């Protein structure tokens, strides 16, 4: 299909460790259409960043295919891959660490032009200046060095560097999580503006559901290397079909239900399981508020690994008991009313 920009198909990534292989990404498929923003949400260790790196061919994969603009790029190398880097770019979490401290802002932004297009000199400087204006930084910033920038300014420079090659896709890995709330809001507004004006598609990787909701049309929620729920952002936020999504939503500080009422937190028990010993059946069952820990009769969760399938809500979820999730969400809203 022509409107599909990025297609990830059955991606698997194994990391060998002393304690055996860690399957960081375990059979994940995800598409991003042109000018679409897709959010990839999960906690540390969910595999979301690894998947983002796979999308940009920065991470070798164990199995699966990566298609970009219709081409199978899974085994592209050398000059072919370099040409592709003009079309997709990355924005990283810690903007100061991502900028070379010994290069001026102008050189940082201009470098991709030289490296990928061989553009130098006056044209390189002119295009760097133009893109600086696009991220709303004054032209005199071109001569500055990273240590002279605030966190918000540095992230704008990081975005400018990604934009300067006019990419079709930008993978943004936690683009605002190191910034203060008011600065984060400025960066979010900028990302939304660039999407509208330049037709860029985003894969936004974040632990923060509310951020993703703000920027993205579609959301995929990852847990321990799998996508456990995927669908239109509004629907997932209004009526999550997977208990993990419901817990994430309720754990997000300041979370409110569809009616604006405060929800009580659905507190998950324990930590993420050891990734070298993933639980049998449903990998979320050890922490699941509606799984066999809470309801011992639900043995299917221990025996069967649920697949991502239509959940009856217009999106997909990997859970044997999606019918119980609505109850969980309602219960959380009801508890909150009783408390207040």
């Amino acid at each position, binding site marked *: 299909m022509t409107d599909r920009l990025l297609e990830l198909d059955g991606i698997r990534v194994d990391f060998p460790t002393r304690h055996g292989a860690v399957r960081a990404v375990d059979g994940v498929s995800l598409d991003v259409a042109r000018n679409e923003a897709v959010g990839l949400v999960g*906690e*540390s260790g969910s595999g979301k960043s690894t998947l983002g790196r796979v999308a940009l061919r920065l991470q070798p994969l164990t199995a699966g295919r990566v298609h970009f603009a219709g081409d199978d790029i899974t085994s592209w190398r050398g000059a072919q891959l370099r040409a592709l880097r003009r079309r997709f770019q990355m924005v990283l979490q810690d903007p100061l660490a991502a900028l070379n401290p010994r290069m001026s802002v102008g050189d940082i932004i201009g470098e991709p032009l030289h490296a990928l297009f061989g553009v130098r000199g006056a044209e390189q400087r002119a295009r760097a200046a133009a893109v600086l204006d696009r991220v709303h930084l004054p032209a005199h910033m071109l001569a500055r060095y990273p240590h002279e920038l*605030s966190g*918000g300014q540095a992230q704008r420079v990081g975005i400018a560097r990604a934009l300067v090659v006019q990419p079709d896709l930008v993978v943004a890995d936690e683009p605002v999580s190191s910034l*203060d*709330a*008011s*600065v*984060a*809001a*400025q960066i*979010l*507004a900028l990302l*939304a503006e660039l999407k509208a004006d330049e037709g860029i598609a985003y894969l936004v990787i974040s*632990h*923060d*559901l*509310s*951020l993703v*909701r*703000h920027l993205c049309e579609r959301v995929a929620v990852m847990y321990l290397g799998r996508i456990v729920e995927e669908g239109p952002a509004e629907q997932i*936020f209004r009526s999550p079909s997977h208990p993990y999504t419901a*817990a*994430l*939503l*309720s*754990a*997000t*500080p*300041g*979370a*409110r239900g*569809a009616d*604006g009422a405060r929800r009580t*937190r*659905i*507190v*998950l028990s*324990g*930590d*993420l399981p050891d990734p070298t010993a993933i639980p049998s059946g449903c990998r979320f069952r050890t*922490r699941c508020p509606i799984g066999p820990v809470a309801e011992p009769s639900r043995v299917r969760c221990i025996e069967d690994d649920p697949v991502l399938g239509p959940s009856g809500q217009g999106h997909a979820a990997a859970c044997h008991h999606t019918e119980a999730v609505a109850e969980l969400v309602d219960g959380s809203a009801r508890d909150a009313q009783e408390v207040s």
Partner: protein
Amino acid sequence: MADALLEVRDLSIVFESRHGRTHAVRGVSFDVAAGELVGVVGESGCGKSVTARALLGLVDAPGRITDGTIRLDGDDVLNMDARTLRSVRGRRISMVFQDPMTSLNPVFTIGQQLVDVMRAHGHAAPQGRALELLDQVEIPAAALRLRQYPHELSGGMRQRVMIAMALANEPELIVADEPTTALDVTIQAQILDLLQRINREQRTAIVLISHSLDVVVDVADRVLVFYAGRIVESGPTSTVFVDPAHPYTRALLGAVPRPGQAVLEPLAGSPPSLAPPPLGCAFAPRCRSCFDPCDEGDPVLDVVDDATGHAVACWLTPAADRRAPGRTA
């Protein structure tokens, strides 16, 4: 107030540097009642963390407390000798920091560190109590955990250990500085739940510091909003959240992406330099409602509602004794 456990009055802290004197905290006053959970919010550099450290007498050079008093149950914390201060820290007031990995000693077991905290304050039978504490903060397999080292624990577990250490000597007040910032959201929810439960069940007062208004809103009874070294708004959490009176608080609430909110209204600009601080209201350059008096005088924090104690420092808000422009607070 007679029933205040902690009483901070006119606290001012400066930092000296090559570039001059930064007025990080500029005349901050607040109370914490026994058993209360008070949230402190503000952006980086607003003075919230250094205020928290001052409560334990932990302001080090180049920082200096230039003015003000801090009283814990009537005892003057800032004028205590080193020995008295040591008996207060960890026993009457304890602190939980943001990053548990750097606060725990990597070469001692969890058990040793817990026992040390109690021995330092003359606890008679620390071993049994250590086990009890880990149970209290809901660490499974507590006996095993006591023999482990910090690196063998997850981030959430380590923060639970820090909270157990803070609880060890049954303090009257726990100061928690960004205790959940380094944690994932589901773990953050667990830790906030735990702090709330400790506050309710043991009546331990907690000062919870966070850059996230939402974290504070979820758990605190009362909230203090810091901006540029001052408290600009304070009051019951529900009042401040539902009906914010200061333009900064309103902007903060509007700038956070939140379910059910269509348009994000980012707050333009950044906080002012405090070396030296501006003469007028520090928020004026970023304020949409700014008018003449704002540049001339700094509004003081005044109570706007006696029933709730809701207080605001803004020229736009009518208050009983809003001072004339030109006078400083």
